[in-house]
């Protein structure tokens, strides 16, 4: 079976269209990140989390009212999968065990404390540094790799594309009001590693073809993208399939992580097909 008999899509011809899309997505992501600001999880801000499961359904309002009674009106309540499961984020000096007791008494219901987290403010700050450090070191290693692996123009373009992918993924997460947690940072780092792959495959093929075939860079780039297209789509496709399985079936704990991967894989695949070679082409012509 084959998706494309002999694909001959003029990717580079549509590059201005792609630039426009990328530009809009990138700029709006930057704006969203700057204006709305990422919502950080307690890993980074410090604070407490109690994940609870009621025996039967309760509306978020009921839960909120109960919490307000004990002076926890400021707590953040999040439905976690169903109306039985809730995630309560707070910073008051109250132990989750006493929360449970109050729910049990007031609502006359069995409540199970499923998960608790309590991160001190100092540890939160350290985890922030650690996350930034990990992302920076990841980026630097990628840069070193790219410097070895690509020629200058491809290298710079690949880095730009990488930046584009990560910022847009982050922008989407902020837009969707998702929390930035350690797993999300891990997902971003994975995207950094993954999205560069497709660019490598395409650029390798372009280099190979430049030696073999005669023609303009534009034609050869287009041909190379087409030649590698089914591989790009299949690999991204299988990866996307498993990530989507994680997103929908993997349970609420992994949801933000899987969502970040899903967006990242889509954006990364798009940019390595439509943006990287196109940018190199335009750079080449300017000279």
């Amino acid at each position: 079976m084959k998706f494309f008999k002999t694909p001959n899509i003029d990717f580079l011809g549509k590059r201005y269209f792609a630039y426009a899309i990328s530009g809009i997505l990138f700029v709006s992501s930057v704006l969203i990140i700057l204006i709305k600001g990422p919502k950080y999880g307690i890993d980074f801000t410090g604070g407490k989390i109690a994940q609870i499961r009621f025996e039967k359904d309760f509306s978020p309002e009921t839960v909120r009212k109960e919490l307000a009674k004990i002076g926890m009106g400021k707590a953040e309540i999040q439905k976690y999968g169903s109306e039985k499961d809730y995630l309560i984020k707070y910073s008051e000096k109250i132990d989750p065990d006493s929360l449970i007791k109050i729910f049990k008494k007031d609502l006359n219901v069995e409540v199970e404390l499923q998960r608790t987290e309590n991160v001190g403010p100092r540890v939160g700050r350290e985890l922030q540094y650690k996350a930034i450090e990990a992302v920076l070191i990841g980026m630097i290693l990628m840069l070193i790799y790219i410097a070895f692996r690509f020629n200058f123009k491809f290298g710079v373009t690949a880095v730009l594309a990488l930046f584009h992918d990560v910022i847009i993924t982050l922008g989407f997460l902020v837009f969707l009001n998702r929390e930035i947690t350690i797993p999300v940072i891990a997902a971003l780092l994975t995207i950094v590693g993954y999205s560069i792959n497709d660019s490598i495959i395409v650029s390798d093929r372009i280099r190979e073809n430049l030696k073999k075939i005669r023609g303009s860079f534009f034609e050869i780039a287009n041909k190379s993208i087409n030649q590698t297209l089914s591989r790009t789509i299949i690999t991204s496709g299988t990866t996307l399939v498993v990530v989507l399985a994680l997103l929908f079936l993997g349970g609420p704990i992994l949801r933000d992580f899987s969502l970040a991967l899903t967006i990242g894989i889509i954006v990364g695949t798009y940019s390595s097909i439509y943006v990287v070679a196109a940018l190199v082409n335009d750079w080449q012509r300017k000279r």
Partner: protein
Amino acid sequence: MKILRWRILVVVLVFIIAILFLIPSIQYYTLPPSSLQKMPKEKINSLRKRALHLGLDLRGGMHLLLEIKGDGLPKEKIRDARDRVIEIIRNRIDAWGIFEPAIQAIGDARVLIQLPGVMERERARELIGKTAQLTFHLVAEPEEIQNVFNLIEKKLQEQIKDTTISPFLSCLRYDRGDIVVREENFDSVQKLLEKAFPFIPEKYIVLWGRIEERGGIKIRPIYLLKKIPELTGEYISDARHTIYQGQDPSLQGRPIVELSFDKKGTIIFSRVTEQNVGKRLAIVLDNIVQSAPFIRERIPTGNAMISGMESMEEAKELAIVLKSGALPAPVEIVEERSVGPLLGSDSIKNGIRAGIIGTIIVFLFMAIYYLFSGLIANFALLLNLIFLLSLLAAFKGTLTLPGIAGIILTVGMAVDANVLIFERIREEIASGKSIKSAVDTGYSRAFVTILDSNLTTIIAAIVLLWFGTGPIRGFGLTLSLGIICSFFTAIFVTKIIFDYMINVKKVKKIYI
């Protein structure tokens, strides 16, 4: 031909070794609980040790990060204190009876404690966080108390320049021989004491008692003690929790901790009690006065007792911490995470479900798109998963929920190697090459690309393994192992199958 045989042998050997490493895990995780209970304890433990290690997020339990409060101490001192803390806490946890706790130093001043299966968070925090500094101080004589407290009052009045109001003494009450403060006044009195601290004569120390309910009112006793302790917890040789059966009716049936002093402690205790008959001896634990009984007579036996525990559990805990010794410095719990066992097994279920569905779709796709070759790729993928799990078991890696996600992601990413190879072979066949040379060039050309394309993902995964904390390291671990395994399974193993078909079976056409 000969080489092919060797290659097959290598794969079979690796496979057998992998299965051997996995057998304990399969045994341990598939045995029904009833037959597990019947097995002798050592056998279960040895099985459990060799089986795949599940992270706290999957098996449930508690994770605590302690920080040693050694303000101003030099680094080496803090490090020494940290090591001592680890030793003492290990003793405490062992005495509590937790299976396979993990206690390790993190940096200079921190200790990470992982307690699988523990959900009694309050208890664990107490047991681990308690300094357990036990000291015995003589309570100051009534006239001394009066003098010092009057002095405190006077100094406080001078500070506010108003002698008509009584800031301190008005908060104090006499109750059954103790000076007590109502709980609602506790914070304000505490603040006053901090202000008055420089004026308290150096030989004394003011300490609070435990919060109590007397006549329906919550109160705390306040004590003036001789600063230098007569005796400390160092001399304790044994501590046991039990039920009080002595003569004091108010303690009858209450949980207590009985202490035995060692030889030196017994001598000191005997001397102190002899010289101070009629006075009160305060038993102070972590700067809180537990009780301050009157010394009725000399106690030569070297036995003492601590009362005032709410429950037998609390008494047991106190006995454990006293026996294990005091922490060399106070510690603070700076991070605490806990996962209930039900959530853990839910997570496993969700992870496995997502994994199976994802894998089935990928398998179906490969089989439909690449036909027979797709089946070979699927076989390689299956082998990859077996090797991955067996490596985890062999190197005692911990499988966490993000780790499961890493395995699932591996399924999606590892087929990339075969996709690259197969696409290349298709192209070579299309360009008119024979099957044999198409396969050979396909593999050799694709190899570099595969290496290239997976390397960046491995780099990212290793960075995560290096810098990540807790469960997320499990993700870096499984993802990097999975991709590394795919080099063996997706390239080496599948090539053997193709070579076998082409060279031995003399197949003229392969479905790809």
